[in-house]
């Protein structure tokens, strides 16, 4: 692929950038509405949980190993382990169970 590649790339990169940057700049003042501020407080948790479940169960190609990874992450998170600890041990658990 020759020059078309760079046109595709530009189109792709610019649309992705604008989706992120426009709202970031447009809402530079503090929003006053209590409802909207409440809503935005909950957005991170809602986003992350929706991205994780059910996707994590299909991330390894095996429901068993993925479930082991999920449970490992859940238990370590409940024990307040750090991000990297949780991420590392859930990978390790998937790896070990995947060997059998």
């Amino acid at each position, binding site marked *: 692929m020759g020059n078309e590649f760079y046109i595709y*790339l530009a189109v792709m990169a610019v649309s992705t950038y604008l989706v992120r940057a426009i709202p970031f700049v447009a809402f530079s003042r503090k929003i006053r509405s209590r409802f909207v501020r409440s809503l935005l407080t909950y957005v991170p*948790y809602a986003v992350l949980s*929706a991205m994780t479940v059910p996707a994590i169960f299909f991330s390894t190609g095996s429901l068993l190993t*993925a479930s082991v990874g999920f449970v490992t992450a859940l238990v370590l998170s409940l024990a307040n382990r750090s991000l990297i*600890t949780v991420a590392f041990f859930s990978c390790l658990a*998937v790896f070990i169970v995947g060997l059998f």
Partner: protein
Amino acid sequence: MNSFKKGIFDGLPIGLGYLAVSFSFGIMGTGYGLTVWQTVLISMTNVTSAGQFAGLNIMVGMGSYIEMIVSQLVINSRYSLMSVSLSQSVDKSFTTKIRLLFGQFVTDEIYAVASSRGEDIGRRYFFGLCILPYIGWTLGTLLGAISGDILPASVSTALNVALYGMFIAIFVPPMKKALSITVVVLVSICLSVFLYFQPFFEISSGVSVIICAVVASVVGAVFFPIKDEADKNGLDALNSADTLSEEREVRHGE
């Protein structure tokens, strides 16, 4: 630890996770006939996972530019929601120029870690936070593009769980402290599972995330409105704010 170093430290798990995810993108790029340089350039200019995979397919299939724009807008629309949320949590050091610059680095994971801080996000912290993920994303793509499929399947499969594990580590601990967050998370998960398995219509994962996030957050905002303290934002305004932010400090400091 100053806030810049703290940001770098918090970005480490994201960077490692990205290394793994972008590795598979690198393999795919050269596998589809792009050069190593072109593949890496996509990662450096887009910094998004699902959007890049979809975009690559459109490029290779010689789809229309309109198709490219629409697919990127739909798949990446969740970033708009995150940017709005983030715009309310950053401090005054985020001028318009800084926002235009850092807007590029609003990814699922950077957003997640930044917004779980429970205090105003400064630009030094945010800058530090972006560095390792960006390097990881670029380097992983490069390694994948150069080496192809060298990792044993058992290793690359295991690495797929890394970022999800990190997400769990972010949204689960606050559930123990605040009923409101537990409810929001459960609503979001139930809806997400429903949308995934329902047979009625096709829906991209990006759009699904938006629907879940909006519905669950509205439920949270209606039933558990935050305390009306103008100067506070995010979790600090929740009832159990103090215990939460203390604990978060401890966790980040580990």
